[in-house]
Structure formats: C-alpha cells, structure tokens
C-alpha cells in the first residue's frame, strides 16, 4: 500500500493546494512543501527499514510490490513495484520537489494554487513512472507528466531571448515528447500482440512480456520505438531541440524538476524497460547508442560554450552529462551502470544548484543574459562562493558526486570501448571550459552595474547548503547509494552476456 500512497499523496496534495488558494497565497506553498517532504520521508523510512542491498531469494527482485486488476479484459493491471533504483529516484523526486516549491516561494506570485497543483501533478506522474510495472500504466504516467509541465512553462514561464516565447517553448516541448511517446505506445501494443499470438494470453505485465520471443524482423523496430521515446526525453542529440527552450523559458521550479527528475525518467526507462525487454537488440544497438552518447557529450559541451543565456548554458551542459549516462547504460559494465546511477543523482543535485542560483540571480538583477552580468563577485555576498562549488561539481571536480559518477562510467567503459572513452574524456576538458566560462562571465570581470545586491536569506542559503552537502557526501562516500542500486545494476550488466563481442563491435563503429 505504501507504493499507492507514494503516488496518491502528490496528487491529493496538488488538489488541496488548488483549493487552499482561497486561504491566501502562503497556504498552497506550505501544503506543497509538506506533501513533498512527506514523500521524501516515506522513501527514507523505506530505505532505512527494508534491506535493499540484496534481492530477496525466491521473492523476485522487488522490495515492495502491489498489484490490483484494472482492466482485466485487456490484461491491464495496476502493478507497482519498487527496487533500489526506483527508491533512490523516488526519494530524489521528493527532495527536488521540496526544493522546487521552496525556490518558487517568491518567484511565483499569481495563481499560486494552480501553480502548485501543476507542480505536484508532475511529481506525482514522475513517481508513478518510477513505480509502474504494467506497461500500460507506465505509459499513462509517462504522458501524465507532460500536461502539467506544459502549463507550468506556458503560464508561469519567462519570455526569453532570441525571440522565443514561452508558449512556443511549451508547445515544442509537448510535441517532441508527445510524438515520441506515441512511438512507445505503438511498440508496447505491438509487443503485447506478439505475446498474444505466441501464447494466447493478453497481458501488459512487465514480468510476462520479458523474454517474449519476437520475430527477428520486428524486434529492432520495437526496441527503437522505446529507445526513441527515451532518447527524446534524455535528451539525445539530435532529439534535444526542446530542452534549451523549455529550460530557458520555464520558471526556476520547472527547470529544477526538468533537469533534476524528468530527464532521469528517460535513463530509468532505458534501464528498466528498453534493455531488459530487448536485450539482444539492445546489445546490437549498443555501438550506435554509445556513438550517440558521445555526440551528445561533445555537441552539448560545444554549444554550452556559445550561449549567452545562463539557463540555456546549463541546459546544454545537461545534454553533455546525459551523454555520459547513455554511454554507460549501453556499455554492459556493472561499474559503468552504477556510475550512471550516481551521475544521475549527481547531475540532479548540481544542475538543481545551478538553476536555483540562476533563479536567485534573476530575482536580483532581472536578467539571464550573461552579457549584462560580470563582476558580481564584489556585489553579492555568498552566492559567488556557492557558484564556484556547483560549477566545480559540474566540471567533475573530485570529491563531488559528479566526479564519482563520471569516473566510474569511464573506468567501467574503458575495457570494452577504449576509443569511446578517449573521445568522451575530451568532454572533461570541454566541461572545464563551459563551467569556467559561466564563472568568468557572471562573477569575474568589471562590474556591469555598480552597487551592492542583497545576499541570500535563510531559505535561499539553506537550499544551496543542503544541495552542496549532499553533493560532497555522495562524492566522498557514495557507498550507501551504490549498495542500494547494486541489485539493479548487476543483472542489467549481465544482459549483455557476450561483452567481448560487444567490445569488438564498438571498436568497429569507432
């Protein structure tokens, strides 16, 4: 039942926020904050009480499971389950959800109730994605995240630089993700029908559909249907067009959620569905996927260097970091997959930190254009120091979580695909360039305008401090996190049974 409540709480909280607006603007904020903290507390309690490190013998791979019939005619169930990976990601959702509420405390001033309804509905949908095992249910939650996000960007976004309006960005986001979701739906239905014709049983269940014997001609296409849906969300170049616009135009809370959690649903989807449902096809596809990841690493970094809008810069760095994740997921190495999970958490923390910082800068100087910044080090207390820390995290400085993730990925991938790692390592230099460019343009140099600006208040300081401490803790002692997800990563890496064969193929592609 805990799983059901984890999903229901954000939705109920959202409805409550919407209605609570009549008691004043503060009520929805407090309710939303409490709701997300509640989700966080539940997941932490589950983490502390249940033994996550080992899959229970005979009891399958799930720590918690809940199922109930929904549409028995089509074999559709409400099937929820949690293992170490979903637990970490749900906890992250709760944590970043609370931060998203906190960072829009002053930023959102109109239709406060409806804003928090949308915010919580997104997060509820995300939790659903992380917990759903029935493919139909998964698709439902997958689509459910999009609509409130659309409203979040369209109603509370900024009209930004380069003639982009927030409506355009929202529409673009919606079309990209909706169209790719459609491909996934087609793949799901096709998979179900293949299974039906094989066994005569109609089922959308993950466990049943795993190991379905798919005709050779069809299988790669079904795998691609899943892959494209996740590739758009990750995002993988060339499907990344929606991301910079959506980030730049979204309110801070939207950016934090988008970078911190929504992108992670894609990596989760690949780990949970694309790889286990189509192991052989995925293995054959791995060289292409790794090449795409590599393109993302380099392309995202090069573009990040050319941006003038601070949020667009951070958005492109996300593309670069997610490229590392994609490489790791298809490397077939346990070390790399564990690294990908650490990097997902690390990127959620560091990009949330940078987006929150840029939001706080916007509240003070009312621009995101870096040409109108400069010399802020002398004008704002404390914030530049935090910027250094998060910039260091983003460039993969050791002792931060990002370093652990990136280096585990590179260490793990190197034996199988050395050429990929050599090129990806160039991304480390590029990461230094874009990260320090941000520092350079915003905080160094002569002052664009004179006069001191207000330092952070307790709320702003607290958010950044918690993020920073977590980044350092994961960077210096990631073991609890690694133990939690070990039971997930090991089986996935074993899917690629013949890794030597994979290495040979990866070599050929390069």
């Amino acid at each position, binding site marked *: 039942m805990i799983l059901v409540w984890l999903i229901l709480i954000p939705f109920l909280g959202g409805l409550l926020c919407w209605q609570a607006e009549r008691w004043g603007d503060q009520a929805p904020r407090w309710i939303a904050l409490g709701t997300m903290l509640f989700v966080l507390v539940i997941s932490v309690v589950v983490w502390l009480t249940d033994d996550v490190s080992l899959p229970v013998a005979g009891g399958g791979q799930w720590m918690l499971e809940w199922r109930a019939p929904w549409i028995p005619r089509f074999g559709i169930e409400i099937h929820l389950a949690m293992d170490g990976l979903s637990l970490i990601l749900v906890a992250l959702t709760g944590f970043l959800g609370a931060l998203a509420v906190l960072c829009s405390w002053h930023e959102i001033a109109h239709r406060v109730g409806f804003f928090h309804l949308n915010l919580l509905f997104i997060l509820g949908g995300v939790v659903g994605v992380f917990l759903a095992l029935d493919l139909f249910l998964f698709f439902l939650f997958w689509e459910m995240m999009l609509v409130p996000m659309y409203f979040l960007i369209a109603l509370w976004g900024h009209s930004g630089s380069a003639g982009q309006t927030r409506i355009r960005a929202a529409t673009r986001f919606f079309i990209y993700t909706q169209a790719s979701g459609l491909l996934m739906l087609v793949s799901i239905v096709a998979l179900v029908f293949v299974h039906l014709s094989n066994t005569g049983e109609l089922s959308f269940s993950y466990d049943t559909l795993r190991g379905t014997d798919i005709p050779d001609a069809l299988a790669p296409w079904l795998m691609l249907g899943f892959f494209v849906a996740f590739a758009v969300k990750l995002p993988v*170049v*060339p*499907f*990344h*067009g929606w991301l*910079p616009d959506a980030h730049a135009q979204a309110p801070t809370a939207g950016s934090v959620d988008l970078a911190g959690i929504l992108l992670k649903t894609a990596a989760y989807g690949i780990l949970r569905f694309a790889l286990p449902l189509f192991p052989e096809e995925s293995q054959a596809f791995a060289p292409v996927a790794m090449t795409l990841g590599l393109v993302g690493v380099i*392309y995202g970094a*090069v*573009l990040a*260097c*050319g*941006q003038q809008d601070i949020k667009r810069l951070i958005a492109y760095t996300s593309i670069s970091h997610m490229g590392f994740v994609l490489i790791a997921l298809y490397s077939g190495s*346990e*070390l790399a997959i*564990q690294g990908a999970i650490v990097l997902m958490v690390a990127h959620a923390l560091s990009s949330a930190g940078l987006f929150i910082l840029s939001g706080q800068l916007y509240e003070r100087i009312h621009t995101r254009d870096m040409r109108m910044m*400069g*010399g802020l*080090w*002398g004008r704002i*207390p*404390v914030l530049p*120091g935090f910027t*250094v820390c998060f910039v*260091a995290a983003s460039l993969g*400085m*050791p*002792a931060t979580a990002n*370093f*652990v993730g990136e*280096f*585990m990925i*590179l*260490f*793990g991938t*190197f*034996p199988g695909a*050395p050429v990929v*790692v*050599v090129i990806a*390592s*160039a991304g*480390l*230099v590029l990461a*230094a*360039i874009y990260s*320090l*460019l941000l520092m*350079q343009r915003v*905080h*160094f*140099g*002569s*002052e664009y305008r004179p006069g001191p600006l207000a*330092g952070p208040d307790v709320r702003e300081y607290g958010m950044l401090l918690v993020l920073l401490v977590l980044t350092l803790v994961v960077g*210096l*002692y*990631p*073991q609890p996190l*690694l133990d939690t997800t*070990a039971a997930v990563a090991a089986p996935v890496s074993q899917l690629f049974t013949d890794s030597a064969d994979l290495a040979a193929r990866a070599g050929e592609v390069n």
Partner: protein
Amino acid sequence: MMALAVILSFLFPLAGTLILAFSAGRLGAGASSFIGVGSVGLAALATAWLVMTHSGDSEVVTLWTWIRVGDFQPTIGLAVDSLALVMMSVITGVGFLIHLFAAWYMTGEVGITRFYAWMNLFVFSMMLLVLGDNLLLLFLGWEGVGLCSYGLIGYYYQNSANGQAAFKAFVVTRIGDVFLALGLFLIFMELGTLDIATVLDQAPQAWAQGSTTANLAALLVLGGALGKSAQVPLHTWLPDAMAGPTPVSALIHAATMVTAGVYLIVRLNGLFLLAPGVLLLVGVIGAVSLLLAAFAALAQTDIKRVLAYSTMSQIGYMFLALGVGAFDAAIFHLVTHAFFKALLFLSAGAVIISCHHEQDMRHLGGLWRKLPVAYGGFLVGGAALVALPLVSAGFFSKDEILWQAMAADQTGLLLVGLLGAVLTGLYTVRLILGTFHGEPGSDHARHPEPGRNLLTHHLPLVVLAMLSTFIGAWLYPGLGEMFPTAPGETTDSGHTLLQVLAIGAAIAGLLLAVWLFLWQRDWLAERTRQGMGARIWTLWHHAWGFDALFDRLLARPWQLLVKYLRVDLVNLAMNLPALTARMLNAGLVRSQNGRVRSYALVMVFGVTVILLTLALLPGEVP
C-alpha cells in the same frame, strides 16, 4: 599516534578553509589572517611531529573505502613514507612561511578571507596529493590544487585579463589531467587496481620492459605531469599565472604545485623504468623546456615573469634528472628549489609592495640601499639559483643532477644542463641589476616604503634565506635507498671533472653577465633595438611564440566552431518537418480560393491526367 599526526596534518588546513568560507565576511582582516596562517602553522607542527615519530618505512592509514564496486575499490587511504614526508615538510614548512609573509603582503586588500580560504584549501589538496596511497585519491589532490590555483590566479577578479589567465591555467592543465585520467583507466584495466604500491609491484610482472602497454601508460601519466609542471608543450599557462598575488606565485607556481609532476613521476618510477624510451623522453622534454625558458627569461621586463620562466627552467632540470633515472637528485633539486624560489618570489613581493605594485624592471632600479632585506633575499636566492659553489643550496642539487646525467652517458643532456647554468647566471644577474641597481625608473622606485614588520616581513625572508644556503642542502635527508640505483651511484670516475665544469659554467655565466650588463650595456641596448637582435628579443620576449601558435591552431578554430554552432544547427535540421508542413499548408491554402472557375480548371486537368494514364498504360483495361 602516527595516524593522528597524519590526519591532523591535512585536517587543520581544511578546518581553516571551512571556517573562513562559512564566516561569510563576518571576520575581520586580522582574524582571517590569524586563522589562515595558524592552520598551516598547526599543520607544519603536525608534520614535524610525524617526522620525529616516523620509523621511515611506508605506513598506510586507511580512513574508509571510497567506492566499492566489484574490483574497483579505491580507498581514502594515506601512505606515509620518506618521500611523502619530504614533500609534506616542504608543503607545510615553506607553505607556513609564505602564509606568514602573505599577512604582510595582503594588508589592506579586500577579500583577505577569500584569499586565505583558497590558500588553506590548496595546502589541504596538496597534502592529499602527496599522501594518497592510490591513484584516484592522488587525482583528487591533483585536481584540487588546480582549482585552488584557478581561484587564486583570478584573485583580482575585476581585471578580466586576470580571469583569462586563471581560465587558461585551468584549461591547459586540465588537458594534461585528461591524459593522466586515461593513464589511470589503462592501468586499472590492465592491473585491476589503483593502489600505488600494488601497481608498482604488479606492473613488472604484467608488462615486459618496453612493451607497448607500459610505454602507453607511462606516456599518459607523463602528459599529466607536463601540464601541472609547465613543461613544453603544456607550459604556456605559467607566465600568465603570475597575475595572482605574489605569495600565490611563491607557493603554488614555484615551490609546490608545479613540482607535482616531478613528484608523480618519482612516485611511479617503477612504471617509467618499464618504459625506458618514455623515461628518456622525460629527460629530453626537460632539457628543451630548460633551454626555451632560460632564453625567454633573458628577455622579460616583468620581474615576476623572469622568475616564472626561471621556475619552468629549473623544473626542466628536475625532468632532466628523471630522464636519466636519478629520482633522488630530482627530489633534492625540488626541495632546494622550493626554498630559494620561494625566497626569490617573496623578495620580489617585498619589492612590489614597497614600490606600490610596480613590477616592471624598466620602472625599478636603485633600490638596494632602500630595501636591504629584499635585496639580501635576492642575493642569497639568486646565488642559489645560479648554483654558486659550496655556499648555496642550489649548487649541491644541480651538481648532483649534472653528475647523474654525465654518469648515465647522456652527453647531450649534460651539455644542455651546462648551457642552462650559463644562461641562469645571465638572467639572474640581469634581474638583480635591473631591480636594485642603476637609476630608479619611476617615482615609485624613488620613494619605496620598505617592509618593517619583524614577524610577517623579515622572519619569512630570513628563514628562507638561511634555507637557501648550504644549510638547506644539509637538511635534505637523501632518499636514495627508496629508488632503483641511480647511474651516478655505481661509478665515480669523472666526478671531479664534472664539478669543475659545473662551477666553470656558473662562474662563466656570472662573468659574462657582468661584462654584458655592466660594461657593454650601450652596445647591448643598441643591438636589441633593431635588426636581427630586435627580432631575437621579440621572439624570446614572447617565449618562442608558443602562445601565438596555439592561438592560431586551437583557440581561434575553437572560437569559430562555437560561434557557428551557437544557433544549434542540428536542431535547425530537426525543424525541417515543421517547415515542410507549413509550406504544404501555404500551398494548399492557396488552392482553396473559392472560385468555381479554378476548381473547374483543376477538375478538367485531373480528369485528363487520369484518362491519359489509363489510355497509355499497357495491358487490358477492366
């Protein structure tokens, strides 16, 4: 007890950083300086305690396992052996004196808290670098010192040129770091461990002498060392790094961080011995850097830039020593160089502050009476730099390097080393004459304000001056037994000849300098003003044009790439479906114009096409 001393030795600077960073401007300048200097002082005391109690064998203190996935199990583990102790003593000892001097140097600057927070963090990272018992922890320190160097070079952030210098330093060294990282990936793949002792133990069994893998691993590690230690071709960042406050240049860009590459190669000496070709390459790169930098130092006018090129040149000597397998000699020179170069930089700092931030030799001069302490520092430090026989620390270490090169039969390297000694004499005399003698070049130099503080000005300079004499050379314990036998240990033939040669080179450099810069000054000025001489001067002044070359080859193409990709071409391509749809829409909308005439026309046209198709198609019509 030992474990406690080790932990304290790097925990004090970390605590200093945290206190300063979280004080958020609540601390005054005095309190900040006190915490910043005090934490390093305590670290120095902890190190001294460790030196006194340590047995001399390698001991490991493992704090916790950093990451554990399968075979990948790097720890947060600290290995203390004689090499680490020597490095720790230099870092905390010289570091403490420099911190103390900085309290005088930074008086009246804004942001002292930030300065000391970065400096303490630097000491912490540098300690981890030398203490790490595995390569990943070493890499943590390695990157950490780079970040601190970035923060301190850009300390005067308001001038964007300083920001550029900091940026350049970080990115160039990061390129080297990526090579080092690749080296780590290769080592882990081949040996399944990152623990330094185990790596050195297993490498000879896994790799044959001179095998491709061993060569590749050594080359990649060398790439990292070149970046940090500012050797050709990754050296261009060091002269620009002088934009930071002078104590920073003394600590980071002379005494400690830039020698990290030497430490790394010494630490992994077993790996390099498996790759003799690469080891020789280390020596050749050192020799090239030594000469290039010495010539460049001759043509600088900024005293800090002279010292920067001199540092690069002296590290070239250390690399030369590594190249002939004389690891002990390299560390010896590292230690004495830390003493005398720190002294030279701090004395330069004393001059700069006394003359109101004037550091161009053309605007200085005639200071020797007015700034006696700084002058003394320059004389003693300069004597050590040119390796003045018997009395200076530099003589003993440089003589050792040249002797090892001779014993290893590397005549080419030996000759370069001797030529370098002559050049060192030239640029050192030019530096001292230009700064302290002759006519003052500006009002700042005519009315200097000498530093008077006994504790924060005189004491560091005097102590470092003493260490730069033969006393410093005596203090070095000698690490010979840690390393494989150096070439000079097995033979002694020709040692006397070499000492005569080395002394001759140093004296020749001094005499030539005196002749050139005192008696032939007008002739020299005339030569460098026009014609061939002017061109050579320009070439040396710009350090052989590496900056311009890299600018053409890398920086500009990169900027063009960024500029043209800024609009996100791939994304534009992805907009094609939308554009097509819009064009189709525009076309079809035009056909719906509501006029019966055109509809009839289109209909007739369509019917004709269909009928013609049917008539012309072969086969039966149904």
